[in-house]
């Protein structure tokens, strides 16, 4: 087990805002969060975009702002919020010791240039020469730096001065879970005291829409309730989500306020035959079970909305809930599916819920799994069922729980 690990800061930039009060207001009002869905801009694919945030609050320098596309901006913003809350921001001594673990996809492309090239590629005689010329003349040198996933972490180090180690994980949902798992393991084992862990995702990615659509998993048309979507059930959501996790002894020494206790993170892979993911989840839950307290538990699910796997998770959770009425919330309904950031996002919401001691209302009142729960909240189980691969589960609990 090793050392006790606390979460001492969190930050989430989401389609529902950048602070707990805004999230709670929105999550409690279906008409509000439904109004945030944008079915027009990237039609036929609806998305949950992030709008109206003031980047300069966390990224004051124009040069830094320009060096990033939306993806990295979301990350840098959320990381700043988390460092602020943890009382680390601007503290050079602590920042030198802070280790960064990030989960990130690649960044944005130059869509105008891509469109321009694709429109002409069929009409030119020498495609190779044409491509070389178009790319050489058209690409902005700095765009590359807004694309490389490791620059996601690089930018956070530069903007916020995080100067310990820096690791960037890739690989969709599992990357987010494993980022937290590895940071927790390192922290518990004394391989570092303070970790800034997070992820981001931009849903405004026509290249990814096209890629996922090729796999037959993108929902087209209008928003639908999460738990019963067709196989093509993904609605992507933009997100930047970070937590500061810290060895209890280190946090106490510097007088940092604990927000929650990070108890355990499990992750596994399986060959995703029907039922295989449920079997893995069963094993993960069994390993967590000794630490789960009866009552006062809720589940924040990372269900993606992809029909088959979301149905499998729904059945699994229904089996776990049994007669106990364990309340589950499929947050992708209100926030969209945020891939690498999905798990981190739910982790932040879990900690915020534990701080309030309350869970937000069902997002899908018609689904029995999303039971009403008004009691005191003591622990939250956060799940990740990757849309293709990657099963993960985390347990956080209230400090006084």
């Amino acid at each position, binding site marked *: 087990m090793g050392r006790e690990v606390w979460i001492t800061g969190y930050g989430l930039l989401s389609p529902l805002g950048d602070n707990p009060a805004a999230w709670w207001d929105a999550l409690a009002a279906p008409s509000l969060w439904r109004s945030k869905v944008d079915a027009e801009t990237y039609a036929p694919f609806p998305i949950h975009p992030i709008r109206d945030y003031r980047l300069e609050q966390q990224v004051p320098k124009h040069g830094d702002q320009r060096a990033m596309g939306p993806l990295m901006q979301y990350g840098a913003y959320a990381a700043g919020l988390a460092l602020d809350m943890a009382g680390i921001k601007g503290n050079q001594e602590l920042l030198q010791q802070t280790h960064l673990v990030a989960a990130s996809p690649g960044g944005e492309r130059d869509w105008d240039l891509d469109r321009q090239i694709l429109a002409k590629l069929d009409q030119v005689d020498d495609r*190779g020469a044409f491509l070389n010329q178009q790319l050489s003349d058209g690409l902005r040198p700095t765009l590359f730096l807004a694309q490389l996933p490791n620059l996601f972490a690089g930018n956070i180090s*530069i903007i916020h001065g995080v100067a*310990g180690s820096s690791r960037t994980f*890739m*690989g969709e949902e599992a990357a987010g879970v494993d980022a937290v798992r590895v940071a927790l393991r390192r922290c518990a*084992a004394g391989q570092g005291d303070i970790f800034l862990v997070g992820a981001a995702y931009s849903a405004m990615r*026509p290249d990814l829409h096209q890629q996922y659509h090729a796999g037959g998993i993108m929902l087209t048309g209008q928003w639908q309730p999460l738990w019963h979507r067709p196989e093509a059930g993904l609605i992507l959501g933009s997100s930047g989500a970070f937590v500061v996790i810290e060895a209890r002894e280190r946090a106490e020494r510097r007088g940092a306020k604990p927000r929650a206790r990070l108890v355990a993170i499990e992750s596994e892979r399986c060959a995703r035959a029907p039922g295989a993911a449920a079997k893995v989840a069963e094993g993960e839950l069994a390993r967590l079970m000794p630490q789960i307290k009866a009552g006062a538990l809720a589940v924040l699910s990372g269900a993606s909305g992809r029909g088959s796997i979301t149905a499998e998770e729904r059945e699994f959770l229904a089996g776990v809930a049994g007669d106990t009425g364990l309340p589950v919330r499929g947050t992708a309904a209100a926030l969209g599916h945020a891939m690498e950031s999905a798990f981190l996002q739910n982790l932040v919401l879990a900690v915020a819920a534990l701080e309030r001691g309350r869970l937000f209302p069902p997002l899908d009142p018609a689904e029995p799994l999303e039971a009403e729960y008004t009691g005191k909240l003591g622990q939250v189980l956060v799940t990740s069922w990757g849309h293709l691969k990657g099963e993960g589960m985390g347990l956080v609990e209230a400090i006084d729980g």
Partner: protein
Amino acid sequence: MAKSAGKPVAVTGLGMVTSLGIGIAENWRRLTAGHSGIHRITRFPIDGLRTTIAGSVDFMDDAPITIPSHSLVMADRAIAEALGQAGMLGEDFPGELFLAAPPVEHDWGSRHYLSARLDCGEKSPYSPGRPVAPPAPELEPYYEDFLNGTLAERMAEKYRVRGSPITLTTACASGATTIQLGVEAIRRGDSPAAIAIGTDGSINEETLIRFSLLSALSSKNEDPTKASRPFSKNRDGFVMAEGAAALVLEDPEHAKARGAVILGYVCGIGEAADTFHRTRSHPNGQAIIRSMQGAIDDAGLQPGDVGYINAHGTGTPENDKMEYFGIVNVFGAEGAKKVAVSSNKSMIGHSLTAAGAVEAAFTVLSLKHGLLPPTINYEMADPAIPLDVVPNTARKQQVKYALSNSFGFGGQNVSLVISAP
């Protein structure tokens, strides 16, 4: 021993593909003979390009080449070789997979095809509001093969590793970061072994042009084998390359208990993030210095114990200058003159995501064989970098401890201390 010294972790298997060839034996033979793997690019048309050379790996019999497919083919060979040497092939592997891979995007061939297949009507591809054709089963590879997690997933399945496989990138330090993660996992007792691998098959017209636009690449196109000139006065950039290297890392007790041959040890790891600039190190070199010093501290050593540095040595004016500056700071002016420093990249180019793993593997071999690979193309010494760069020919020299440096764009720096078996 410094009180912070970490436990050494054994290396019991190595596997490799570089522009010099397939397999450890062939690579070691050619590297120590001072051969260059750099050549004219034939994978795509080079009309109008500022740089027309690379250390691409063109002999894997895979076509068409995409970033994920090519990276996978090389990773597969390297892992199989490493597990074979470790005597662990064909059984459940008792540990995790840490895999460094280039970020995946559709290449232009895939993008062009997919856009043509999916985008109907008059509207241009990627335009909002366009009609979209329904997906078809034959398009599925354009989805799954191009997910960032797929490569590690497939390797994890094939080689039966434990747990959730990790795909990572820390730019040019990535390969070294995989080793670091593996060492940390073994040290904290998560599992008795780990596979650390870096693979990079990302040379295409767009990636080449992107690095070229950053003014990072050598444009000495005339004689490709002479282009990569780390530490020389007339160096003008790095040469993009491909490759993969895998290391089987193992708890020494576990390795001994099963009678495995130990090839060397990773006995120190150091890492520091630079907070200065996206492509340049802070002029005070602090992050590089902390990285090297951290690795030496972690190994419980003094700088004077280190006899060889496998340099990051990219051959860009900036890197080599800063690396020298860091070495002088850590080793002192006199110490910096004594320690042998060479750059594998003078021969194999810069294999980016794979480089840290490739060079760590070469460092293990250097210590095991008592033979330091040269820095080739060293014809014009840079008076600002007075190092013993093992110029042009390999040198027989027994060394107990070596440092392997990897410094990445975006300020991610990793150093490893490797020791002889």
